[in-house]
């Protein structure tokens, strides 16, 4: 049963159609991320849900109520902005209390709700400070508390972490996810950082030029991208040119070896096509259980801690491989010739 339903949503600025036939059903308590490159319309979708932009066509319903024509201040939706947007003239406590005051919540109840919220974000001792006396991460947490205080039906976040430095970004995104799960609040999170989207979302909507290309769990999006755009945008891909040998059985030829692809091959017999493999699907060395072994020359080695990222040249093309670090086995040095194992079952079929 979907709680927030967006159907056939479109938005044009003049003649520029920036959101095209956008459909999404969000279950109650679900955490959805809108992921896509800059300018693909993520913010525009979010702002239409918030009521800051009027859709050109389509509808938005929340909990069965049609909100498309409703003013922003009548929607009971919490919003967090990239630029924090705390009210500079109000203290932390007054910022959090703002929505409750507007609603006319009595003083005593308001105060207890504010301290509950400040405890939730761990800033109870900062209640009397002004926004300019807080760090960016603290300000953004206050913004979260402020958005959540009036118990909104939906929480919308527009790249709330992109103004913060890397460490704060990771800890705050986990905090947001934890609070979201604890309160069970339906959430839409906009980001162009795929790692961010994948680590905290129940489902991801990958957007491309105003269209929702694919909707699915992070696992599905990463492992079974349905369009070439999604495959390229999320994660790193190595593409290999293959020739179809038996399209019904999903068998293709890569060099001298025959690979069996997962179901979904649509190209006909004898067709030239491309398959893609994630860096972790390629194994260094001759591994048992893999369909074929190809030769490559190591060009770059990036030691990243638990993972070592290798770039190797295979048949003129550069491929990327991830292997786990092992203390008893130093990585190969650039220039060495290596064997790379791979299997058709790990491949992503790029139709078209």
């Amino acid at each position, binding site marked *: 049963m979907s709680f927030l339903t967006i159907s056939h949503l479109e938005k044009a600025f003049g003649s520029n159609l920036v959101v095209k036939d956008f459909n999404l059903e969000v279950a109650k308590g679900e955490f959805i991320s809108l992921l896509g490159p800059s300018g693909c319309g993520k913010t525009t979708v979010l702002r239409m849900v918030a009521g800051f932009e009027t859709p050109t066509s389509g509808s938005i319903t929340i909990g069965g109520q049609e909100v498309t024509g409703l003013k922003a*201040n009548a929607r009971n939706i919490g*919003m967090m902005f990239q630029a924090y947007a705390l009210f*500079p*003239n109000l203290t932390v406590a007054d910022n959090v209390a703002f929505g409750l005051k507007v609603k006319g919540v009595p003083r005593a109840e308001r105060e207890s709700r504010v301290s509950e919220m400040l405890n939730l974000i761990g800033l109870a001792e900062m209640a009397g400070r002004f*926004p300019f006396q807080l760090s960016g991460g603290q300000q953004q947490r206050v913004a979260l508390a402020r958005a959540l205080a*009036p118990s909104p039906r939906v929480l919308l976040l527009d790249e709330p972490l992109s103004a913060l430095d890397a460490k704060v970004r990771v800890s705050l995104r986990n905090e947001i996810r934890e609070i979201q799960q604890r309160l069970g609040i339906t959430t839409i999170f906009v980001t162009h950082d795929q790692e961010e989207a994948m680590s905290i979302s129940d489902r991801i909507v990958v957007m491309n030029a105003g269209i929702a290309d694919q909707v699915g769990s992070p696992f599905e999006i990463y492992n079974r991208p349905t369009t070439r755009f999604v495959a390229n945008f999320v994660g790193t891909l190595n593409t290999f040119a293959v020739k179809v040998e038996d399209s019904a059985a999903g068998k293709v030829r890569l060099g001298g070896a025959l690979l069996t692809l997962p179901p979904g091959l649509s190209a006909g017999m004898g067709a030239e096509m491309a398959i893609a493999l994630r860096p972790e699907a390629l194994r260094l060395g001759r591994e048992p259980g893999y369909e074929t072994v190809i030769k490559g020359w190591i060009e770059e080695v990036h030691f990243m801690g638990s993972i070592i990222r290798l770039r190797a040249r295979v048949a003129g093309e550069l491929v990327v491989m991830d292997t786990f670090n092992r203390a008893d086995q130093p990585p190969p040095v650039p220039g060495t010739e290596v064997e790379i194992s791979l299997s058709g079952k790990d491949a992503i079929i790029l139709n078209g």
Partner: protein
Amino acid sequence: MTRFFAWFALIFGCLYFLLPLVGMTEFSLKMRRGEYSFDAYRRVFEDQRFWDTFGYSLALSAATIVVGVLLVVPTAYWVRLKLPQARPFVEFVTLLPLVIPAIVLVFGYIRLYNTSSVLPLTGSAFGTDFLLTMGYTTLALPYMYRSVDTGLRTIDVATLTEAAQSLGAGWITILARIILPNVMVAVLSGAFLTLAIVLGEFTMAALLNRPAFGPFMQLLGANRAYEPPALAVIAFAITWGCMGLMQLVTRLSKHERAKA
């Protein structure tokens, strides 16, 4: 060499402005023959008309400030938020009072609102005060608009508005609780400028025949010798006091809260 010229210009400028002031002050102290005294000042302060006109102008400047704030803050806010492309036009309009002489404005008023017109505002004291307040608001408009607009530039008007809207606030709440408090310093400096303008204004008050401070200064100047410079010194002191208050407000509020 450039240093020399800089100093020369500074000293020349100071002399240019200060000498007449010093001369005037000195003269105002010379009412009693052969010694310096505050006699001229005492005379001014003993004059009931001084207090009456001063009080009248003070009351009218308060009204002007209120009208100005109610007119300018929402306008400047709305233009920044919804009509940014109209800003040059609005700025031009607010500058018009600097180009159009007050006398033109007041003659317009008298022609439009005289006792035989549809709206005979000049027929009653209250009506005339109302007209005068509107006139003063127009005169102060360039200063008020500029300072409020500058104040709005220091905050992210659009995002703060959206944040407040998503929390359920309507326009009045947003203006009163978010926008106005954040441009308070700018509003106050506009208010002090307005006060200074209204206290010194002569043309409108004289032609509308209202007992304001400006016409009183003129009247005194035409009939007395020592009191007018004393009054001028007092007027200067008030104006400088306003400027000092402006500085003070800016300083103090910086302590309370810096703009994020």
